[in-house]
């Protein structure tokens, strides 16, 4: 049995951005402390930020829209950035993207224009690393449940997570991880009440 050493253990407050580089071989646990909290996530090769997560390449390679244990998170060029090595939930979204101030006006009405949103969190985290709007692409939504029905209808529905459930990712290369601990209050992705999450990196 191998013992692991914790190299980072941080709480991300409700609604907040977070980012870090996870070294190759290290594991990142994302822990849904209170349950039913969507965690929007983008990944970049730390060595080359243009080699970034591709939801479409990942979905096409595994021929399935849901992420769970065994899912390899790929870039456009086929680089494996991280692998899901453990998952208490079994079904995470990567087709529905992030909420933004602008898309909120379409989904919920123009009264939501100035609410907190994930794209603004992503931008804040991205700017810290010299990245910008053009570097933001379709992301992962850990703990968010987005079924697609037979006629193509899709939408964010009640989550499958619960307090303390977690997903564990192993970095295959040094990976820059951007997170928006989703501030959305207009759909069930956070149970209409954003809560903190915990990020633990071990080696």
């Amino acid at each position, binding site marked *: 049995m191998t013992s692991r050493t914790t190299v980072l253990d941080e709480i991300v407050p409700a609604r907040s951005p977070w980012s870090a580089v996870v070294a190759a071989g290290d594991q990142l646990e994302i822990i849904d402390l209170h349950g039913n909290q969507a965690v929007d996530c983008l990944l970049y090769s730390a060595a080359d930020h243009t080699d970034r997560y591709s939801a*479409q390449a990942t*979905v096409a390679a595994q021929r399935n829209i849901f992420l769970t244990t065994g899912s390899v998170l790929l870039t456009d060029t086929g680089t494996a950035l991280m692998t899901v090595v453990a998952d208490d939930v079994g079904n995470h979204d990567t087709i*529905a993207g992030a909420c933004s*101030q602008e*898309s909120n006006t379409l989904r919920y009405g123009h009264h939501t224009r100035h609410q907190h949103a994930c794209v603004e969190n992503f931008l804040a985290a991205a700017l810290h690393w010299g990245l910008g709007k053009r570097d933001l692409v379709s992301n992962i939504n850990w703990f968010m449940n987005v079924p697609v029905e*037979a006629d*193509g209808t899709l939408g964010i529905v009640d989550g499958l997570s619960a307090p303390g459930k977690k997903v564990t990712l192993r970095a295959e290369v040094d990976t820059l991880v951007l997170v928006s601990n989703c501030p959305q209050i207009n759909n069930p992705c956070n149970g209409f009440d954003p809560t903190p999450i915990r990020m633990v990196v071990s080696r």
Partner: protein
Amino acid sequence: MTSTSSTTGARAHARSQAATAAVAEPDLPDGVESTRITFTQRIPGAGSANVVLGRGTRVRLADPTGAACAHLLLVRAEAPWERLNVADTVKVPWQAYLGDGHPLLSDQGRVLATVLADTSGRHDALCGPTAEARQLLCLAGAKHGLQPRDIGPTVSFFRGVRVESDGALTATGSAAAGASVDLLVHLPVILLVANAAHPLDDRAATDLDVVAWAAPEDLAVAHNTDPEYQRAVVNTERAWSAARTTEASR
């Protein structure tokens, strides 16, 4: 001595090529005056196109022989940091499958284009381009000053994919030869399109036809009554009006 061993001979040889060549062109749409047509191109497999299209352009993508695959990206011509957002394009209309009336939304809550007609029904917004198609899109984008990081997620027309209840994906192939899709452009865009195989359907791509024409009257028609769509149009019209207001027009 060959005929091309001198400059004059080489020039004559080069000029003779166009004189004897036949350029394959798309069929033009019925009922559209030729003076309204702004762009036509037949794109072979492994080919691409890049063109700026104005607001009020209607563009027809067609699959004349039945195995085209149009990997499409739209970038706002006047503000290229705004581009097609495929996630919003499926999430906001609550619909994963592209078809008549579906908006192609930007990352700024605006509609770059609307699907106005669809005789294929075999499209995909989930799998994105193959490596070959992405390289074609990167090159096409580079001709407009775009970098690979500007080439975001894409949609594919003429090769279908369906999602099973467990999330698994199944390719549904192509419709019959002759299928077409019309898009209405709501804001000036750089249209990038690559014609190449689909990630879940590796058949080589056959010809893809692209024809664009001026159809500003289509902007005045409500193409979708969903509240999400109508708010996207409001956002789009506001952005257009704000940018277009000039002193002279007061």
